[in-house]
């Protein structure tokens, strides 16, 4: 059977959710799989709802948008409230518990990561939360190898922040190891 996973990363504009999706998709292609990444954001550069969707598959990907996701990653309460209904029954919920207070009662598997808090403490800025979440996500979906992820991160972030981003990603990996 072909392997296929559909991921939605959601949060607010400025949290780097679109970038996280792009890096995941790129790493999937570097791992020899097909990937499509789409995004949705408001006209405002900061603060409005933002989401990034990634489909990774061994076969050709037709429809590019995610209808029901296997993994939902949320970095804000409003994002969780909005997208929770689209999580598949056997799916996985990955929550930044530094920015999300209330998680609905659910039978799906939930991983709680204090990403923003850890980012602030360890890397001096909450913005690295997206890479911590991405690390945890990579471990959960297990379709993309860590080397490809690191390569994709290095290509996608500003040169000065490469090391911090890679370290944040590794921190995320370790949360679930």
């Amino acid at each position, binding site marked *: 059977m072909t392997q296929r996973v559909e991921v939605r990363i959601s949060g607010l504009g400025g949290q780097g959710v679109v970038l996280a999706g792009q890096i995941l*998709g790129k790493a*999937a*292609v570097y791992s020899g799989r097909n*990937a499509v990444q789409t995004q949705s954001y408001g006209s405002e550069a900061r603060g409005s709802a933002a989401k990034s969707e990634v489909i990774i598959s061994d076969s*050709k990907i037709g*429809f*590019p948008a995610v209808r029901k996701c296997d993994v939902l990653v949320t970095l804000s309460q409003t994002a969780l409230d909005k997208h929770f209904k689209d999580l598949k029954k056997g799916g996985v919920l990955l929550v930044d518990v530094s920015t999300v207070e209330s998680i609905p009662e659910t039978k799906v598997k939930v991983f709680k990561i204090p990403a923003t808090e850890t980012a602030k403490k360890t890397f001096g800025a909450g913005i690295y939360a997206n890479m911590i979440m991405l690390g945890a996500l990579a471990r959960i979906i297990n379709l993309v190898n860590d080397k490809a992820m690191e390569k994709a991160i290095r290509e996608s972030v500003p040169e000065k922040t490469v090391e911090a981003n890679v370290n944040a990603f590794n921190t995320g990996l370790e949360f679930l190891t």
Partner: protein
Amino acid sequence: MTTTKSNTYFWQGNQACAEGAIAAGCRFFAGYPITPASEIAAHMAKRLPQVGGIAIQMEDELASVGVAIGASWAGAKAMTATSGPGFSLMQEFIGYAFITETPCVIVDAQRAGPSTGQATKCGQGDVMQSRWGTHGDYSAIVLSPNSVEEMFTLTVRAFNLAEEYRTPVILLADETIAHMREQITVPSSDSVNVINRRKPRAGDKAFFGLEEVPPMPAVGEGFNVAVTGSTHDEYGIRFTADPLVHKKLVERLNNKIRNHVEEISDFEDYNIEGCQIALLVYGCTSRAIYEAVEKAEAKGIKIGYIRLKTIWPFPEKLVRKLAEKAEKIIVPEMNLGQICYEVERVANGLAEVIPLNKIGGGELITPEELLAKILREAEKNE
């Protein structure tokens, strides 16, 4: 990153468009910021100078296409990129490029209009504008990509058609395909088929007639070319009242496209011969058909489709053939119905034409919605 080596990347549609342009020989880009086309300008600004080309941001979209036309007459392959609001502003110069036979490529990454509409959301509302946007009698060549890979290959083709037919060509993309990232295998530069405009020979004087597609000099080559948006004869001399000069010019300009529909047309098809229900699709909307067709077939429905990669000139013969084979043609569009009326005109009662429309919020027509429509129409047949 380089395009000289055959390789696989994870690119955004807009980046693939920019790289496709460069591979086709584009060395001049002008634009004005607009969502969802701005990444093309940003990418061109970075990449063009590396290959000796020029990228410039102009004061508005009028100037952007105007400067591209000037660049084309100076001998460069030129492109501009925009979305609906800017595309509206460009219509004046698109007519000018048509009547002056100026090759250039205009990208319209459609968003939800009219007016500012939903600036970051996908739509397909510019289909008719891409055909009829400027005033007067004219014919348009409009291509519709449905993947990141086609943002590359159809941009190359847009340049080739522009050069071959000496006319503006529109790449009618949409927000989904422009912003989407996807794997793309970039062909090596020597395997990209590149067509260049035919140059005049010494002593040639007729750059606007005598032949279906006349040769095109550049300024500064000593041909003393007189270019005008007014009606003109074969030598570029203005005739503002003569009915025959106008008829001859405008008929030739239209016929050089209308007489070559088959060569210009490009499409993907499936099971046209054996289908009862057919889909006619283009652009982002077509991404829903693969899953919907598979599921419809699993339920025993005889289904086929045509996906247009060339929307204009409209491939009448092809669609008439589809109408002869299928009982019903479903036309899904992210607008309130545009190409469906063209299908209806061509089908002329041979098949029932059924629109499936969805607008707002950039939400694509899903495979489920398309399948539901197919099943409903199949049930009605029984």
